[in-house]
Protein backbone atom coordinates (compact mmCIF):
# COMPACT_ATOMS: atom_id res chain seq x y z
CA UNK A 1 0.00 0.00 0.00
CA UNK A 2 1.41 3.35 -1.02
CA UNK A 3 1.83 6.08 1.57
CA UNK A 4 0.72 9.42 0.18
CA UNK A 5 2.78 12.19 1.74
CA UNK A 6 3.95 15.66 0.80
CA UNK A 7 7.04 14.30 -0.91
CA UNK A 8 5.03 12.07 -3.23
CA UNK A 9 2.59 14.83 -4.15
CA UNK A 10 5.45 17.25 -4.84
CA UNK A 11 7.22 14.67 -7.00
CA UNK A 12 4.15 13.76 -9.03
CA UNK A 13 3.16 17.43 -9.38
CA UNK A 14 6.61 18.05 -10.86
CA UNK A 15 6.15 15.13 -13.29
CA UNK A 16 2.73 16.60 -14.15
CA UNK A 17 4.17 20.09 -14.65
CA UNK A 18 1.74 21.53 -12.13
CA UNK A 19 2.63 24.25 -9.63
CA UNK A 20 0.88 23.71 -6.30
CA UNK A 21 0.75 25.98 -3.28
CA UNK A 22 1.09 24.66 0.29
CA UNK A 23 -2.65 24.52 0.82
CA UNK A 24 -3.18 22.52 -2.37
CA UNK A 25 -0.42 20.10 -1.40
CA UNK A 26 -2.05 19.44 1.98
CA UNK A 27 -5.45 18.98 0.36
CA UNK A 28 -4.10 16.55 -2.24
CA UNK A 29 -2.17 14.55 0.39
CA UNK A 30 -5.53 13.96 2.08
CA UNK A 31 -7.83 13.48 -0.94
CA UNK A 32 -5.42 11.52 -3.13
CA UNK A 33 -4.50 9.45 -0.06
CA UNK A 34 -8.18 8.58 0.42
CA UNK A 35 -8.65 7.75 -3.25
CA UNK A 36 -5.55 5.54 -3.51
CA UNK A 37 -6.59 3.75 -0.33
CA UNK A 38 -9.87 2.95 -2.05
CA UNK A 39 -8.00 1.94 -5.22
CA UNK A 40 -5.84 -0.44 -3.20
CA UNK A 41 -8.76 -2.87 -2.99
CA UNK A 42 -7.95 -3.80 -6.59
CA UNK A 43 -5.06 -5.84 -5.19
CA UNK A 44 -7.67 -8.29 -3.77
CA UNK A 45 -8.77 -9.24 -7.28
CA UNK A 46 -7.12 -12.24 -8.86
CA UNK A 47 -6.13 -11.10 -12.33
CA UNK A 48 -3.65 -13.85 -13.18
CA UNK A 49 -3.55 -14.38 -16.92
CA UNK A 50 -6.07 -11.63 -17.66
CA UNK A 51 -5.18 -9.41 -20.59
CA UNK A 52 -5.75 -5.74 -19.65
CA UNK A 53 -8.61 -4.03 -21.48
CA UNK A 54 -7.08 -0.83 -22.77
CA UNK A 55 -9.32 0.24 -25.63
CA UNK A 56 -13.04 0.78 -25.92
CA UNK A 57 -13.23 -1.29 -29.10
CA UNK A 58 -11.94 -4.73 -30.02
CA UNK A 59 -11.77 -4.32 -33.75
CA UNK A 60 -8.73 -3.16 -35.63
CA UNK A 61 -9.17 0.50 -36.31
CA UNK A 62 -9.80 1.74 -39.81
CA UNK A 63 -7.23 3.89 -41.51
CA UNK A 64 -8.15 6.70 -43.84
CA UNK A 65 -6.18 7.79 -46.86
CA UNK A 66 -3.29 10.09 -46.03
CA UNK A 67 -4.64 13.05 -47.92
CA UNK A 68 -4.38 16.76 -47.24
CA UNK A 69 -7.78 18.25 -46.46
CA UNK A 70 -7.93 22.03 -46.55
CA UNK A 71 -9.05 23.38 -43.19
CA UNK A 72 -9.99 26.79 -44.49
CA UNK A 73 -9.20 30.37 -43.66
CA UNK A 74 -10.90 32.99 -41.50
CA UNK A 75 -12.37 36.29 -42.70
CA UNK A 76 -8.86 37.83 -42.76
CA UNK A 77 -7.55 35.09 -45.01
CA UNK A 78 -5.51 33.54 -42.17
CA UNK A 79 -5.55 29.77 -41.54
CA UNK A 80 -8.47 28.98 -39.22
CA UNK A 81 -6.36 26.70 -37.04
CA UNK A 82 -4.42 29.78 -35.92
CA UNK A 83 -7.52 31.72 -34.98
CA UNK A 84 -7.44 30.85 -31.29
CA UNK A 85 -3.67 30.91 -30.79
CA UNK A 86 -2.53 33.31 -28.02
CA UNK A 87 0.04 34.83 -30.40
CA UNK A 88 0.58 34.43 -34.11
CA UNK A 89 3.29 35.64 -36.46
CA UNK A 90 2.81 35.30 -40.19
CA UNK A 91 1.32 31.82 -40.60
CA UNK A 92 2.79 30.36 -37.44
CA UNK A 93 2.41 30.24 -33.66
CA UNK A 94 4.48 32.74 -31.73
CA UNK A 95 6.00 31.92 -28.33
CA UNK A 96 8.12 34.04 -26.00
CA UNK A 97 11.86 33.54 -26.15
CA UNK A 98 12.54 31.18 -23.26
CA UNK A 99 15.69 29.45 -24.40
CA UNK A 100 18.59 31.86 -24.10
Amino acid sequence: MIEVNEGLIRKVAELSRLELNEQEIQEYVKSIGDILKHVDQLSQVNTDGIEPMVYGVDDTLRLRPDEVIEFGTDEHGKPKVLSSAPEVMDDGYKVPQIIG
Partner: protein
Amino acid sequence: MSNTKTIREIHDAFDAGITNPLALTQAFYSKIDQSKHNAFITLCKDRALKQAEQLTQDLKSKHGGKVPRGTHPLYGIPLGIKDVLTMDGVRTTAASKMLDNYISPYTATAVQKLENAGAISLGKLNMDEFAMGSSNENSAYGNVLHPTHPDRVPGGSSGGSGTAVAADLCVAALGTDTGGSIRLPASFCGIVGMKPTYGRISRYGQIAFASSLDQIGPMTKSVEDAALLTQVMSGVDMYDSTTADQPVEDWVKVVRDTAANPSPQGMRIGVPKEYFIDGIDSEVRQAIEDTIEKLKAQGAEIVPVSLPHTEYAVATYYVVAVSEASSNLSRYDGVRFGVRPKAAMEAGSPAEFYKKVRANFGAEVKRRIILGTFALSSGYYDAYYRKAGQVRRLMRNDFEAAFKNVDVIVSPVAPTTAFKIGEKAKNPLQMYLTDIFTIPASMAGLPAMSVPVAKDHQGLSIGMHLIAPRFKEGVLLKAATIVERISS
Protein backbone atom coordinates in the same frame (compact mmCIF):
# COMPACT_ATOMS: atom_id res chain seq x y z
CA MET B 1 -41.57 13.65 -15.84
CA SER B 2 -41.50 16.98 -17.53
CA ASN B 3 -44.80 17.78 -19.23
CA THR B 4 -43.33 20.05 -21.89
CA LYS B 5 -43.38 19.26 -25.56
CA THR B 6 -41.52 16.48 -27.31
CA ILE B 7 -40.16 16.74 -30.85
CA ARG B 8 -43.16 15.03 -32.41
CA GLU B 9 -45.55 17.37 -30.60
CA ILE B 10 -43.57 20.40 -31.76
CA HIS B 11 -43.63 19.20 -35.35
CA ASP B 12 -47.40 18.75 -35.06
CA ALA B 13 -47.60 22.34 -33.82
CA PHE B 14 -45.48 23.54 -36.78
CA ASP B 15 -47.77 21.65 -39.17
CA ALA B 16 -50.83 23.20 -37.57
CA GLY B 17 -49.31 26.67 -37.80
CA ILE B 18 -49.54 27.12 -34.03
CA THR B 19 -45.87 28.06 -33.85
CA ASN B 20 -42.79 28.09 -36.10
CA PRO B 21 -39.03 27.58 -35.67
CA LEU B 22 -38.33 31.31 -35.27
CA ALA B 23 -41.07 31.93 -32.70
CA LEU B 24 -40.03 28.83 -30.79
CA THR B 25 -36.36 29.82 -30.79
CA GLN B 26 -37.22 33.31 -29.58
CA ALA B 27 -39.43 31.87 -26.87
CA PHE B 28 -36.58 29.67 -25.60
CA TYR B 29 -34.18 32.63 -25.56
CA SER B 30 -36.58 34.70 -23.52
CA LYS B 31 -36.91 31.80 -21.06
CA ILE B 32 -33.13 31.40 -20.92
CA ASP B 33 -32.69 35.14 -20.30
CA GLN B 34 -35.06 34.96 -17.34
CA SER B 35 -33.65 31.71 -15.95
CA LYS B 36 -31.44 31.79 -12.84
CA HIS B 37 -30.13 28.25 -13.30
CA ASN B 38 -26.78 29.22 -14.90
CA ALA B 39 -27.34 26.40 -17.38
CA PHE B 40 -25.64 28.06 -20.36
CA ILE B 41 -22.08 29.35 -20.67
CA THR B 42 -22.39 30.83 -24.16
CA LEU B 43 -25.43 31.66 -26.28
CA CYS B 44 -25.16 31.85 -30.05
CA LYS B 45 -28.26 33.96 -30.66
CA ASP B 46 -27.32 35.50 -34.03
CA ARG B 47 -26.39 32.16 -35.51
CA ALA B 48 -29.48 30.39 -34.15
CA LEU B 49 -31.98 33.12 -35.03
CA LYS B 50 -30.65 33.34 -38.57
CA GLN B 51 -31.01 29.60 -38.94
CA ALA B 52 -34.50 29.67 -37.39
CA GLU B 53 -35.61 32.45 -39.71
CA GLN B 54 -34.46 30.50 -42.77
CA LEU B 55 -36.19 27.33 -41.58
CA THR B 56 -39.39 29.27 -40.93
CA GLN B 57 -39.33 30.78 -44.42
CA ASP B 58 -38.54 27.42 -46.03
CA LEU B 59 -41.32 25.71 -44.11
CA LYS B 60 -43.82 27.88 -45.95
CA SER B 61 -42.14 28.39 -49.31
CA LYS B 62 -40.46 25.03 -49.86
CA HIS B 63 -42.41 22.56 -47.78
CA GLY B 64 -45.97 23.82 -48.06
CA GLY B 65 -46.23 24.41 -44.31
CA LYS B 66 -45.58 20.75 -43.46
CA VAL B 67 -42.42 19.67 -41.66
CA PRO B 68 -40.24 17.51 -43.94
CA ARG B 69 -39.92 14.84 -41.26
CA GLY B 70 -38.42 12.27 -43.60
CA THR B 71 -35.43 14.32 -44.76
CA HIS B 72 -35.18 16.65 -41.73
CA PRO B 73 -36.32 14.76 -38.64
CA LEU B 74 -35.17 17.62 -36.37
CA TYR B 75 -36.56 20.45 -38.48
CA GLY B 76 -36.60 23.67 -36.43
CA ILE B 77 -35.93 21.93 -33.11
CA PRO B 78 -33.91 24.15 -30.71
CA LEU B 79 -31.26 22.19 -28.82
CA GLY B 80 -28.65 22.91 -26.17
CA ILE B 81 -25.11 21.64 -26.72
CA LYS B 82 -22.79 20.69 -23.88
CA ASP B 83 -19.83 23.04 -23.97
CA VAL B 84 -17.39 20.19 -24.55
CA LEU B 85 -18.46 19.90 -28.20
CA THR B 86 -17.08 22.24 -30.82
CA MET B 87 -19.10 24.44 -33.16
CA ASP B 88 -17.38 26.37 -35.93
CA GLY B 89 -16.96 30.02 -34.96
CA VAL B 90 -18.50 29.55 -31.50
CA ARG B 91 -16.65 29.64 -28.17
CA THR B 92 -16.01 26.21 -26.63
CA THR B 93 -14.70 26.37 -23.06
CA ALA B 94 -15.21 22.88 -21.58
CA ALA B 95 -16.10 25.04 -18.53
CA SER B 96 -12.40 25.73 -18.03
CA LYS B 97 -10.51 28.99 -17.68
CA MET B 98 -7.95 27.32 -19.93
CA LEU B 99 -10.27 27.68 -22.92
CA ASP B 100 -12.01 30.90 -21.92
CA ASN B 101 -11.14 32.53 -25.25
CA TYR B 102 -11.20 29.47 -27.50
CA ILE B 103 -13.26 29.87 -30.66
CA SER B 104 -13.41 26.45 -32.26
CA PRO B 105 -12.56 26.37 -35.97
CA TYR B 106 -14.70 23.32 -36.78
CA THR B 107 -17.96 21.63 -35.80
CA ALA B 108 -18.24 18.30 -33.98
CA THR B 109 -19.66 15.56 -36.21
CA ALA B 110 -22.54 14.86 -33.79
CA VAL B 111 -23.60 18.51 -33.80
CA GLN B 112 -23.18 18.76 -37.57
CA LYS B 113 -25.43 15.76 -38.10
CA LEU B 114 -28.12 17.26 -35.88
CA GLU B 115 -27.93 20.59 -37.69
CA ASN B 116 -28.02 18.82 -41.06
CA ALA B 117 -31.27 17.24 -39.86
CA GLY B 118 -32.69 20.71 -39.18
CA ALA B 119 -31.81 21.26 -35.52
CA ILE B 120 -31.03 24.73 -34.17
CA SER B 121 -28.22 25.08 -31.61
CA LEU B 122 -29.22 27.66 -28.99
CA GLY B 123 -25.93 27.72 -27.16
CA LYS B 124 -23.34 25.94 -25.10
CA LEU B 125 -24.32 24.33 -21.82
CA ASN B 126 -22.52 24.52 -18.51
CA MET B 127 -20.79 21.42 -17.16
CA ASP B 128 -18.03 20.29 -14.82
CA GLU B 129 -14.62 21.44 -16.05
CA PHE B 130 -13.44 19.03 -18.78
CA ALA B 131 -16.42 16.83 -17.83
CA MET B 132 -14.79 15.93 -14.52
CA GLY B 133 -17.41 15.86 -11.79
CA SER B 134 -20.74 14.50 -10.61
CA SER B 135 -22.39 17.69 -9.34
CA ASN B 136 -21.54 20.50 -11.75
CA GLU B 137 -19.74 22.26 -8.89
CA ASN B 138 -16.44 22.12 -10.78
CA SER B 139 -17.29 24.64 -13.50
CA ALA B 140 -15.11 27.73 -13.88
CA TYR B 141 -18.36 29.50 -14.79
CA GLY B 142 -20.20 28.74 -11.56
CA ASN B 143 -22.36 25.81 -10.57
CA VAL B 144 -25.64 24.98 -12.28
CA LEU B 145 -28.74 24.90 -10.12
CA HIS B 146 -31.07 21.92 -10.00
CA PRO B 147 -34.18 22.61 -12.13
CA THR B 148 -36.69 22.49 -9.27
CA HIS B 149 -34.67 22.51 -6.03
CA PRO B 150 -32.22 25.46 -6.08
CA ASP B 151 -30.33 24.21 -3.01
CA ARG B 152 -29.50 20.97 -4.84
CA VAL B 153 -27.05 19.95 -7.55
CA PRO B 154 -28.31 18.88 -10.98
CA GLY B 155 -25.72 16.08 -11.14
CA GLY B 156 -22.72 16.10 -13.41
CA SER B 157 -20.89 16.42 -15.48
CA SER B 158 -23.67 17.27 -17.99
CA GLY B 159 -25.49 19.32 -15.35
CA GLY B 160 -26.30 22.25 -17.63
CA SER B 161 -27.85 19.80 -20.09
CA GLY B 162 -29.94 18.15 -17.37
CA THR B 163 -31.26 21.40 -15.97
CA ALA B 164 -31.83 23.02 -19.38
CA VAL B 165 -34.01 20.15 -20.58
CA ALA B 166 -35.91 19.73 -17.31
CA ALA B 167 -36.49 23.49 -16.94
CA ASP B 168 -37.58 23.62 -20.59
CA LEU B 169 -34.82 25.98 -21.75
CA CYS B 170 -34.45 23.83 -24.88
CA VAL B 171 -36.27 20.86 -26.41
CA ALA B 172 -33.40 18.47 -25.86
CA ALA B 173 -29.68 18.63 -25.23
CA LEU B 174 -26.44 16.85 -25.91
CA GLY B 175 -24.44 15.51 -23.04
CA THR B 176 -21.32 13.39 -22.85
CA ASP B 177 -20.82 10.39 -20.62
CA THR B 178 -17.50 8.97 -19.46
CA GLY B 179 -18.55 7.30 -16.19
CA GLY B 180 -22.18 8.43 -15.87
CA SER B 181 -22.14 12.08 -16.89
CA ILE B 182 -25.35 11.81 -18.94
CA ARG B 183 -27.24 9.28 -16.82
CA LEU B 184 -26.61 10.84 -13.40
CA PRO B 185 -27.88 14.36 -14.24
CA ALA B 186 -30.77 12.81 -16.18
CA SER B 187 -31.74 10.90 -13.04
CA PHE B 188 -31.30 13.90 -10.72
CA CYS B 189 -33.22 16.24 -13.04
CA GLY B 190 -36.03 13.83 -13.96
CA ILE B 191 -35.41 13.49 -17.69
CA VAL B 192 -34.31 10.73 -20.07
CA GLY B 193 -30.57 10.32 -20.65
CA MET B 194 -28.96 7.88 -23.05
CA LYS B 195 -25.36 6.79 -23.42
CA PRO B 196 -25.16 4.75 -26.63
CA THR B 197 -22.62 1.97 -27.15
CA TYR B 198 -19.03 3.19 -27.19
CA GLY B 199 -18.26 3.82 -30.87
CA ARG B 200 -21.85 4.50 -31.97
CA ILE B 201 -21.43 8.26 -32.24
CA SER B 202 -18.33 10.01 -33.51
CA ARG B 203 -16.26 11.81 -30.90
CA TYR B 204 -14.76 14.14 -33.48
CA GLY B 205 -15.07 17.61 -31.98
CA GLN B 206 -15.60 16.31 -28.44
CA ILE B 207 -12.91 17.65 -26.15
CA ALA B 208 -11.34 14.47 -24.81
CA PHE B 209 -11.39 13.42 -21.16
CA ALA B 210 -10.89 9.61 -21.23
CA SER B 211 -10.88 8.45 -24.82
CA SER B 212 -11.63 4.76 -24.24
CA LEU B 213 -14.79 5.71 -22.31
CA ASP B 214 -16.09 9.05 -23.65
CA GLN B 215 -19.38 8.91 -25.52
CA ILE B 216 -21.83 11.56 -26.69
CA GLY B 217 -25.55 11.05 -26.11
CA PRO B 218 -28.92 12.77 -25.88
CA MET B 219 -30.75 14.15 -22.84
CA THR B 220 -34.43 14.48 -23.61
CA LYS B 221 -38.00 14.72 -22.35
CA SER B 222 -39.00 11.34 -23.77
CA VAL B 223 -37.53 8.01 -24.79
CA GLU B 224 -38.73 8.64 -28.35
CA ASP B 225 -36.70 11.86 -28.55
CA ALA B 226 -33.63 10.04 -27.24
CA ALA B 227 -34.10 7.40 -29.95
CA LEU B 228 -34.42 10.06 -32.63
CA LEU B 229 -31.33 12.02 -31.65
CA THR B 230 -29.25 8.86 -31.31
CA GLN B 231 -30.43 7.65 -34.68
CA VAL B 232 -29.46 10.93 -36.34
CA MET B 233 -26.01 11.09 -34.69
CA SER B 234 -24.93 7.45 -35.07
CA GLY B 235 -22.71 5.99 -37.73
CA VAL B 236 -19.20 5.70 -39.10
CA ASP B 237 -17.19 8.90 -39.29
CA MET B 238 -13.89 9.07 -41.12
CA TYR B 239 -12.68 11.55 -38.49
CA ASP B 240 -13.09 9.07 -35.63
CA SER B 241 -11.55 5.68 -36.31
CA THR B 242 -13.29 4.17 -33.25
CA THR B 243 -16.77 4.70 -34.73
CA ALA B 244 -18.40 1.33 -35.31
CA ASP B 245 -19.45 -0.03 -38.68
CA GLN B 246 -22.73 -1.34 -37.28
CA PRO B 247 -26.17 -0.89 -38.82
CA VAL B 248 -28.12 2.09 -37.49
CA GLU B 249 -31.67 0.88 -37.05
CA ASP B 250 -34.92 2.81 -37.09
CA TRP B 251 -35.03 3.21 -33.32
CA VAL B 252 -37.89 5.70 -33.45
CA LYS B 253 -40.00 2.97 -35.02
CA VAL B 254 -38.96 0.57 -32.26
CA VAL B 255 -40.14 3.10 -29.66
CA ARG B 256 -43.43 3.84 -31.44
CA ASP B 257 -44.22 0.17 -32.04
CA THR B 258 -43.47 -0.58 -28.41
CA ALA B 259 -45.54 2.39 -27.20
CA ALA B 260 -48.50 1.07 -29.21
CA ASN B 261 -48.27 -2.21 -27.32
CA PRO B 262 -46.10 -1.64 -24.26
CA SER B 263 -45.85 -5.18 -23.00
CA PRO B 264 -42.72 -6.64 -21.44
CA GLN B 265 -44.08 -10.14 -22.15
CA GLY B 266 -41.16 -12.43 -22.92
CA MET B 267 -38.54 -9.86 -21.94
CA ARG B 268 -35.86 -11.20 -19.62
CA ILE B 269 -34.82 -8.50 -17.19
CA GLY B 270 -31.71 -9.01 -15.09
CA VAL B 271 -31.48 -7.62 -11.59
CA PRO B 272 -27.89 -7.62 -10.28
CA LYS B 273 -27.72 -8.23 -6.56
CA GLU B 274 -24.54 -6.15 -6.32
CA TYR B 275 -26.53 -3.02 -7.26
CA PHE B 276 -28.91 -3.31 -4.31
CA ILE B 277 -26.44 -2.81 -1.53
CA ASP B 278 -26.53 -1.10 1.85
CA GLY B 279 -26.14 2.62 1.47
CA ILE B 280 -28.83 3.02 -1.16
CA ASP B 281 -31.44 5.53 -0.10
CA SER B 282 -34.54 3.59 0.96
CA GLU B 283 -36.89 5.58 -1.29
CA VAL B 284 -34.62 5.01 -4.30
CA ARG B 285 -34.52 1.28 -3.61
CA GLN B 286 -38.28 1.17 -3.15
CA ALA B 287 -38.96 3.03 -6.40
CA ILE B 288 -36.74 0.69 -8.42
CA GLU B 289 -38.15 -2.43 -6.76
CA ASP B 290 -41.70 -1.19 -7.38
CA THR B 291 -40.90 -0.68 -11.06
CA ILE B 292 -39.41 -4.15 -11.28
CA GLU B 293 -42.60 -5.53 -9.68
CA LYS B 294 -44.73 -3.72 -12.25
CA LEU B 295 -42.63 -5.17 -15.07
CA LYS B 296 -43.05 -8.61 -13.57
CA ALA B 297 -46.80 -8.17 -13.16
CA GLN B 298 -47.05 -7.32 -16.86
CA GLY B 299 -45.24 -10.45 -17.96
CA ALA B 300 -41.50 -9.73 -17.83
CA GLU B 301 -39.28 -12.50 -16.60
CA ILE B 302 -37.21 -11.17 -13.71
CA VAL B 303 -33.87 -12.95 -13.49
CA PRO B 304 -31.37 -12.47 -10.64
CA VAL B 305 -27.90 -11.93 -12.12
CA SER B 306 -24.48 -11.36 -10.61
CA LEU B 307 -21.89 -8.78 -11.62
CA PRO B 308 -19.28 -9.72 -9.03
CA HIS B 309 -16.72 -7.03 -9.85
CA THR B 310 -19.12 -4.12 -9.33
CA GLU B 311 -17.54 -3.20 -5.99
CA TYR B 312 -14.28 -2.47 -7.82
CA ALA B 313 -15.89 -0.17 -10.40
CA VAL B 314 -15.00 3.17 -8.83
CA ALA B 315 -11.44 2.06 -8.06
CA THR B 316 -10.95 0.82 -11.61
CA TYR B 317 -12.46 3.93 -13.14
CA TYR B 318 -10.37 6.34 -11.06
CA VAL B 319 -7.22 4.71 -12.39
CA VAL B 320 -8.22 4.25 -16.04
CA ALA B 321 -10.06 7.56 -16.58
CA VAL B 322 -7.49 9.73 -14.82
CA SER B 323 -4.60 8.06 -16.61
CA GLU B 324 -6.18 8.80 -19.97
CA ALA B 325 -7.03 12.32 -18.80
CA SER B 326 -3.47 13.09 -17.71
CA SER B 327 -2.38 12.25 -21.24
CA ASN B 328 -5.26 13.99 -23.04
CA LEU B 329 -4.88 17.21 -21.07
CA SER B 330 -1.19 17.55 -21.89
CA ARG B 331 -2.24 19.30 -25.11
CA TYR B 332 -3.09 22.53 -23.28
CA ASP B 333 0.31 24.08 -23.73
CA GLY B 334 -0.61 27.74 -24.22
CA VAL B 335 0.89 27.74 -27.71
CA ARG B 336 -1.77 26.66 -30.19
CA PHE B 337 -4.93 27.67 -28.35
CA GLY B 338 -6.18 28.57 -24.91
CA VAL B 339 -5.32 31.21 -22.40
CA ARG B 340 -1.65 32.13 -21.94
CA PRO B 341 -1.30 33.87 -18.55
CA LYS B 342 1.02 36.86 -18.18
CA ALA B 343 3.27 34.88 -15.84
CA ALA B 344 4.01 32.46 -18.68
CA MET B 345 5.51 35.28 -20.73
CA GLU B 346 8.25 35.68 -18.12
CA ALA B 347 9.06 31.99 -17.88
CA GLY B 348 12.74 31.04 -17.99
CA SER B 349 12.31 27.58 -19.50
CA PRO B 350 9.78 25.59 -21.54
CA ALA B 351 8.87 23.57 -18.41
CA GLU B 352 8.18 26.74 -16.45
CA PHE B 353 6.16 28.18 -19.33
CA TYR B 354 4.08 25.02 -19.38
CA LYS B 355 3.55 25.12 -15.60
CA LYS B 356 2.35 28.73 -15.70
CA VAL B 357 -0.13 27.88 -18.46
CA ARG B 358 -1.42 24.87 -16.55
CA ALA B 359 -2.25 27.08 -13.57
CA ASN B 360 -5.48 27.69 -15.52
CA PHE B 361 -6.75 24.24 -14.51
CA GLY B 362 -9.21 24.00 -11.62
CA ALA B 363 -8.65 21.94 -8.45
CA GLU B 364 -10.45 18.77 -9.55
CA VAL B 365 -8.74 18.71 -12.94
CA LYS B 366 -5.34 19.08 -11.26
CA ARG B 367 -6.22 16.31 -8.82
CA ARG B 368 -7.01 13.95 -11.68
CA ILE B 369 -3.89 14.88 -13.64
CA ILE B 370 -1.79 14.13 -10.54
CA LEU B 371 -3.57 10.81 -9.97
CA GLY B 372 -3.22 9.83 -13.61
CA THR B 373 0.42 10.81 -13.79
CA PHE B 374 1.03 8.77 -10.66
CA ALA B 375 -0.78 5.69 -12.05
CA LEU B 376 1.25 5.82 -15.24
CA SER B 377 4.60 6.60 -13.62
CA SER B 378 7.57 4.30 -13.50
CA GLY B 379 7.31 1.80 -10.66
CA TYR B 380 3.56 2.15 -10.24
CA TYR B 381 2.26 1.41 -13.76
CA ASP B 382 1.81 -2.35 -13.26
CA ALA B 383 0.20 -2.06 -9.84
CA TYR B 384 -2.25 0.62 -10.94
CA TYR B 385 -2.85 1.16 -14.66
CA ARG B 386 -2.22 -2.40 -15.79
CA LYS B 387 -4.10 -3.88 -12.85
CA ALA B 388 -7.10 -1.62 -13.45
CA GLY B 389 -7.15 -2.65 -17.11
CA GLN B 390 -7.29 -6.29 -16.04
CA VAL B 391 -10.16 -5.67 -13.61
CA ARG B 392 -11.89 -3.71 -16.36
CA ARG B 393 -11.82 -6.80 -18.55
CA LEU B 394 -13.26 -8.87 -15.71
CA MET B 395 -16.08 -6.34 -15.38
CA ARG B 396 -16.82 -6.70 -19.06
CA ASN B 397 -16.72 -10.48 -18.75
CA ASP B 398 -19.29 -10.21 -15.91
CA PHE B 399 -21.69 -8.46 -18.28
CA GLU B 400 -21.08 -10.93 -21.10
CA ALA B 401 -21.93 -13.81 -18.77
CA ALA B 402 -25.05 -12.05 -17.46
CA PHE B 403 -26.31 -11.19 -20.94
CA LYS B 404 -26.33 -14.89 -21.87
CA ASN B 405 -29.47 -15.13 -19.74
CA VAL B 406 -31.10 -11.70 -19.93
CA ASP B 407 -31.98 -9.03 -22.49
CA VAL B 408 -31.47 -5.98 -20.30
CA ILE B 409 -30.19 -5.26 -16.81
CA VAL B 410 -31.90 -2.76 -14.52
CA SER B 411 -30.73 -0.98 -11.39
CA PRO B 412 -30.89 2.43 -9.73
CA VAL B 413 -28.90 5.12 -11.58
CA ALA B 414 -27.43 6.43 -8.34
CA PRO B 415 -27.63 5.53 -4.66
CA THR B 416 -29.44 8.79 -3.83
CA THR B 417 -31.53 11.55 -5.32
CA ALA B 418 -29.97 14.98 -6.01
CA PHE B 419 -27.84 15.97 -3.04
CA LYS B 420 -27.30 19.44 -1.61
CA ILE B 421 -24.85 21.93 -3.07
CA GLY B 422 -21.61 21.62 -1.09
CA GLU B 423 -22.59 18.33 0.52
CA LYS B 424 -19.83 16.30 -1.13
CA ALA B 425 -17.62 19.05 -2.52
CA LYS B 426 -15.01 18.65 0.22
CA ASN B 427 -14.81 14.87 -0.07
CA PRO B 428 -13.78 13.77 -3.58
CA LEU B 429 -13.98 10.04 -2.79
CA GLN B 430 -17.60 10.37 -1.60
CA MET B 431 -18.36 12.32 -4.76
CA TYR B 432 -16.77 9.60 -6.90
CA LEU B 433 -18.88 6.91 -5.23
CA THR B 434 -22.01 8.63 -6.61
CA ASP B 435 -21.12 6.99 -9.94
CA ILE B 436 -20.87 3.43 -8.64
CA PHE B 437 -23.83 2.12 -10.69
CA THR B 438 -23.10 3.99 -13.92
CA ILE B 439 -19.37 3.28 -14.19
CA PRO B 440 -19.52 -0.48 -14.96
CA ALA B 441 -21.50 -0.01 -18.22
CA SER B 442 -19.01 2.67 -19.24
CA MET B 443 -16.04 0.43 -18.52
CA ALA B 444 -17.60 -2.29 -20.70
CA GLY B 445 -18.64 0.17 -23.45
CA LEU B 446 -22.32 -0.81 -23.15
CA PRO B 447 -25.36 1.27 -24.08
CA ALA B 448 -27.29 2.44 -21.03
CA MET B 449 -30.10 4.82 -20.14
CA SER B 450 -31.70 6.65 -17.27
CA VAL B 451 -35.50 6.83 -17.30
CA PRO B 452 -37.41 8.71 -14.58
CA VAL B 453 -39.70 6.38 -12.63
CA ALA B 454 -40.66 8.18 -9.42
CA LYS B 455 -40.09 11.05 -7.02
CA ASP B 456 -39.06 10.89 -3.39
CA HIS B 457 -40.97 12.60 -0.57
CA GLN B 458 -39.16 15.86 -1.32
CA GLY B 459 -40.19 15.77 -4.95
CA LEU B 460 -36.72 14.79 -6.18
CA SER B 461 -36.58 12.50 -9.21
CA ILE B 462 -35.47 8.90 -9.17
CA GLY B 463 -34.18 7.31 -12.36
CA MET B 464 -34.11 3.67 -13.35
CA HIS B 465 -30.89 2.56 -15.02
CA LEU B 466 -31.16 0.18 -17.97
CA ILE B 467 -28.15 -1.52 -19.57
CA ALA B 468 -28.11 -3.60 -22.78
CA PRO B 469 -25.45 -5.58 -24.65
CA ARG B 470 -23.17 -3.74 -27.08
CA PHE B 471 -24.97 -2.33 -30.12
CA LYS B 472 -28.36 -3.47 -28.82
CA GLU B 473 -29.80 0.04 -28.63
CA GLY B 474 -33.05 -1.36 -30.04
CA VAL B 475 -33.50 -3.68 -27.06
CA LEU B 476 -32.52 -0.90 -24.66
CA LEU B 477 -35.02 1.56 -26.15
CA LYS B 478 -37.79 -1.01 -26.17
CA ALA B 479 -37.28 -1.69 -22.47
CA ALA B 480 -36.97 2.04 -21.75
CA THR B 481 -40.25 2.73 -23.54
CA ILE B 482 -42.04 0.16 -21.41
CA VAL B 483 -40.52 1.57 -18.21
CA GLU B 484 -41.52 5.08 -19.29
CA ARG B 485 -45.11 3.96 -19.93
CA ILE B 486 -45.59 2.02 -16.70
CA SER B 487 -44.13 4.91 -14.69
CA SER B 488 -46.22 7.71 -16.14
